[in-house]
């Protein structure tokens, strides 16, 4: 199962690297969004707390614009059937989850670095906590969006449905993530973010477990 999963992960990675469909679109999306934010904030001075919210908005919508690719592409190319025949549902889910994970982590690192670079007012009090939250948040986003992407791949209006279905499911993660990032940005005490970190971790465990149990029903026609 693990071997199959890794094979699917490599397949997705290879095809992504060859076409660069998601990467190009996502990079442009991030640059454009940040540019819009910067245009609208010329001359304004915002607190790091307010900028934290903006950072998460960019992260959320970037995830919404690119992460449904992994499953939607299979439907569009008509390769779903082949995959169903060749691999077990568990390994398909695991492979896609790994690919989404890589994509989100890379994407969010890019977003955060760019954000730190262009926003002078955005300073981080605790870099270690900040990056921990970013990592946990990325894993959570990848876990929740993987199963939602599998669901919407079967629907008619894929693009618009993805954020609609994802938002309520992602909201606990977003709230905890934003709160923890605010602590990391504004306060010098690590312990203040402990409840949020626990919540992020338990959210990931819950979503991955539920997805594993339910993926069978989504995947099989």
């Amino acid at each position: 199962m693990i071997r199959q999963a890794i094979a699917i992960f490599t397949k997705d990675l290879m095809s992504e690297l060859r076409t660069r469909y998601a990467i190009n679109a996502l990079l442009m999306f991030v640059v454009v969004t940040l540019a819009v934010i910067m245009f609208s904030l010329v001359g304004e001075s915002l607190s790091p707390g307010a900028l934290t919210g903006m950072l998460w908005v960019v992260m959320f919508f970037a995830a919404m614009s690119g992460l449904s690719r992994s499953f939607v592409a299979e439907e569009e190319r008509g390769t779903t059937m082949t995959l169903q025949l060749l691999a077990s549902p568990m390994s398909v889910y695991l492979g896609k989850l790994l690919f989404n994970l890589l994509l989100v982590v890379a994407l969010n690192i890019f977003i955060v670095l760019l954000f730190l670079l262009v926003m002078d007012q955005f300073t981080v009090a605790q870099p270690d906590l900040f990056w921990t939250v970013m990592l946990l948040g990325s894993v959570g986003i990848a876990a929740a969006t993987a199963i939602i992407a599998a669901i919407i791949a079967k629907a008619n209006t894929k693009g618009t449905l993805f954020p609609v279905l994802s938002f309520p499911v992602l909201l606990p993660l977003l709230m905890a993530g934003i709160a923890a990032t605010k602590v990391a940005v504004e306060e010098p005490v690590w312990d203040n973010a402990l409840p949020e970190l626990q919540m992020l971790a338990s959210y990931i465990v819950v979503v991955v477990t539920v997805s594993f149990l339910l993926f069978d029903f989504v995947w099989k026609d």
Partner: protein
Amino acid sequence: MWWKILLFFWIAVLSAVAIVTPIAGTLGDLAGVAQWSETKMIPMRFTVTDRGGAADDGGWLLRGADEDGREADFHFATRPDGLDQAEGYLVLARYDTEEHRVEVAEILGDYPAFAFPFIPGLEERAKIIFFHVPMSWMTVVAFLVSMWFGIQYLRKKDLEDDFRSAVSAGLGLLFCILATTTGSLWAKFNWGSFWNWDPRQTSIFVLLLVYGAYFALRSAIEVDEKRASLSAVYSIIAAATVPFFIFIMPRIMPGLHPGSADDTGSGPVFSSGMDAGMRVVLYSMLLGYLVLYAWLMRIQMRLHRIKLKRADVAL
């Protein structure tokens, strides 16, 4: 048939009781109000212990006791009507801290046998609990029932279960909209704005979003079996993440609703400190709403079967 009539009267009578029953405070409430306002009047009830006599200023002074057994002087502007027969009054009054007596502004009626307690900051507005709380509970119940039938569909692949799940979600959406609008109208008058992102408002908003997403997903899939299994899966995923909002967050976060983390027990929290009369009316109302929900489910299911039959005939 009979139980539908009974249900109708049950809800109608309880609504009437909830609206008509007066709010009546005690001397303790009056003293509490007097600490922060000298002119604020609140309704209170007392029994007459001594019919008293004319006061120096031409008014009437008598002695009365509230339900806790505490006594005080009550000052009326004129001799109260029917004083010779009256055992007690429901009055609009304030406590005069200089004269150490209760100033009665208006007699609202005789001593009411059944009244809801006066809650500082809520007063008459406390009565929303009999409508808003059952609606909110039904929202959650309908969601859980919808998820339950979703699971049943995934186990048995019976499309009837899927339909039950969808119908329950529809009713849940109805109750959700009702709870949100009543709550937000009430919030305008009690908290000053329609929406202030109190944890419980956030949670009902998330439920509204989940219901909306559920129906958006259903309308986007054409094959019946696919629609059934995907919407069931979505409702289970939502059920795994949303309880956090409904049950945990409103209790650990500071907020305006009773039961929040910074609530010191002033509000009518269900288990403790709530008046027995209020609790009986609230729980009876909950029962009424539950049966109403079951009835609506039945109607929808019958409609569904009739439609299926007609489709068969047409084929």
